[in-house]
């Protein structure tokens, strides 16, 4: 988030400590995560220490502190997907991308997440890539998708 964007964001708030969470949400909405620099800026503006802000932000699962990957792969491990082999799909992805769920590959391309349910259990096992749902997938299908460099149609 550059200086102008941040100054623009300031105009939407009164600059009180109570604005902290909505401000953090806006920043995460704009840049995808909370960087140390943006937390420092918020600290100076709202007069809350960086450590306190970090404490508040880490309390909520919604805030991220790492730059998100360009492609977000979410593997469903809800009951239905678990039964139909979601775990194996996650395993393959973990090995192929060499990261744990919640992390981003070193080149910043992929981010792997495990989710509890995507709400379409009839399609199990389900994987969502950049918001697009891939139903009845398999280890092979996922591998093919990744081999193709994820040239899927953007929704």
């Amino acid at each position, binding site marked *: 988030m550059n200086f102008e964007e941040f100054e623009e964001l300031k105009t939407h708030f009164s600059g009180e400590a109570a604005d902290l969470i909505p401000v953090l949400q806006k920043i995460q909405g704009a840049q995808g995560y909370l960087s140390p620099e943006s937390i420092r800026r918020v600290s100076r503006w709202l007069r*809350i220490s960086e450590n*306190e802000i*970090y404490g508040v932000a880490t309390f909520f699962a919604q805030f991220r502190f790492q730059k998100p990957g360009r492609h977000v792969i979410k593997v469903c491990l809800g009951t239905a997907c678990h039964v139909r082999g979601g775990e194996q799909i996650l395993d393959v992805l973990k090995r192929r991308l060499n990261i744990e769920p919640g992390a981003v590959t070193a080149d910043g391309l992929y981010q792997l997440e495990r989710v509890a349910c995507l709400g379409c259990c009839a399609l199990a096992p389900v994987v969502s890539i950049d918001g697009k749902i891939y139903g009845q997938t398999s280890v092979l299908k996922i591998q093919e998708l990744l081999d193709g460099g994820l040239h899927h149609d953007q929704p």
Partner: protein
Amino acid sequence: MSSQTQPPIEKKTIRLEINHRAVTCPEGATILRAAELNGIYIPSLCSHKDLSPFGGCRLCMVEVEGMRGYPLACSTPAAEGQKVLTETAALRDMRREIMELILSEHPSSCLLCSEKEECSGVLQTIRKSGVTTGCRYCPNDGQCELQALVEKLGITDIHYPIYYRGYEAEHDDPFFDRDYNICILCGRCVRMCQEVRGTAVLAFTSRGPKTQIGPAFGRSHIEAGCEFCGACLDVCPTGALADKTSKWDGPPDGSAVSTCPFCALGCQVELFHKDGRLSKARAHLDPEINDGQLCVRGRFCMPETTHHHQRARKPMIKHGAYFREVSWPEALDAVAARLKNVRPGEFLMAVSPDLTNEGLYAARKFVTESLGSPGLDSTARWALPGGADVWSRLLSLPISIKGLASAEAVLAVGLDSRFSFSVAGVEIRRALKEGAKLVTIDSRESNLARYTDHWLRPRPGGEGETLLALAEKMAGAPPESKGTREESASGLTTRDLDEAARVLGSGKSLAVLVGPAVFGRDKGGAAARALLMLAGRENTIFLPLYQGANTRGALELGILDQSAGGMRLEDVLEGRAKPKVIYLVGETPFLERPDCDYLIAQDIYLPPFEVDAFLPAASFAEAGGTLTNVEGRVQEIVQIECLPDGAIAGFVRPDWFIFSQLSSRVSQRGFVYESWRDVLRDISGHVQGFPAVPDRRPRRMTWKTDFRDVKASPESASGGDLVLLLEPGGFRHRGIDLSFVVEGLTELKLEEGFRLHPSDLAALGLEPGETLTLSWNGTEASAPVRADADLPPGAAAAWRPSAYGGLLHRRSLLPLFRQPDDVLSVRVASRKGKKSRKT
């Protein structure tokens, strides 16, 4: 006006019933506080009287008639007619259950060991060497709130599965270790850091079972801006936070309240002793000055300063090529023999502004009466730029530390309170919490920048000018010279100043703090003039800060008057005068032996050069005395160590005692003192306004001479590559820099060479740690560089010590320390990259 003369309105008391007993408490108190006030015990781990209610440990639950469930005593206000029960069968059961839950995540070997009963009996052995028998799991064993409570609740078993968090203990930061496996997440340290200190370095991070305490992004405490005040340690109910130096000492034998000997604020400390030696210092809850808070020096540096293995504890005399230990009479005779033969004009004594009042007075009496010499000087004069007459005026202003917290507006000039004068910083943040406004004038981003309402950032070194311009604006006085003086001099516009004056307001009570660096940089005396101008304003208090713990004492006791006829230290440094005999008392203003026939040093450490006689002085822990703080309070330093002469304690003597012994040897006009109290009585008879016994009332100084206005000569440091700022400081105590003996201070790397803004470092192509050589007026000095993002770009900063003990590694900076200006325009002479760096 009439309301001020009446006694303050008493808080309404309310009546309630605790455990069927009728009790009273002031309105607004919690049930827990009401019980405490009436001597009724309610167990609790997370509540603390200085901190807000938290309700984390749940142990203080009570039964209140008419209230549903089990309310927490720490967060439920006491109410009229309430009926409270603190000990019922149900409560006892629940408390035990809660405690077991807490213990299921806390290593419990110190609590529930089956051998516990017998263990203490076999701890002592009759072996020759000191061995540890029994278990030492936790530094807090025997002084632990949790341990005491487990015993009180009678818990002998935990019915829950034990979970060990498996965190690595954190030893990386200086001064204290952290082991968050032992932490019970009571949040006292977090609240202390946020509410009382206002620094908020500590916070709860994550949640649920992963909750941990620490700074953001897993940073170290140094990076996160920790002041290392140790307040978190003092409230920790477990051993999670432990002082590195006294970690395994066990419970102390006793304690006494004393005065911190390290700076002019004169904070009250509680000194603990173990086996007759000082073991640690804690803040004393003294409402007059520090109110339970300290800085890194007061909290952590005392034991190492007096117990370091290099401490010199025996008199030594040079005989030919040998420098050997001798007895006191022999040393005194040898020194007296030399002093007897010296002509008054060829003698110079330098006394440290860290000496007690008694030491300073006895030194003066010795020089002027016994030796009849005018040769008395002190680096106290360096700590008071502008001279004694300016400072006696400044110290006659209403000075108050306590008043900071109740000010409605605060003006802080050139003050960074992170490691020095931290207590003043705490008081400022206390005022801000009450709604005060803060204006800072600082060319560098100080630790107060985060809280400031308006930050005036002048060009480096322009703080004094800016303060004067602002004072003129606030006093409504016409600017001394017309036009846009403030713009050119300080790089600030009139609009900035108007805004600052508006923030400070006109009718509000104002506190003005000026850091020690400002006076030194301010050749024209603008800062002093500004303060005197503001003194005309109503409801204004001041805090002009300077180096040296007892500099004001030195000023009042006339140490600085003496140099009129005698030599000055500068004369010796610059070779203009060559005294035959130099006597250094707690002073090391040189790195190399000055040119003289006979050199006497009297200090707690040997100076870094050869001396002819060394007399070991007693440290603050080994001798009593008094110090005069910036407000003029004459406060007692308590002698906490009274060990007999010998291998451990050495053969140290108080400064005043050494002078009194020497005086009868050198002249008929000797003086004899039995104790420091005699000296203080003597002082009060000779120095007007000085008390005869320690007196903690603030005194405003009386000034005799008129304030001679120093003509302003704002020299603009320009034309070079960088503006170099020399900051008075380091951590001076007597002749040494504390970083020489206190390992933790070395880790803070405060005195490390040149500091530059990261962008300047990058432009020069230097990495931190590489060497930079700066030149000015044909002289140069080199030192390693370090990045400091707080500095403005285009500026470099370095400490200028006034005591050189232990700073031999800064020899290459000596030309810089020697030159008189605090702001210099310098050129980059050379820089050494990675290749030429020594490995």
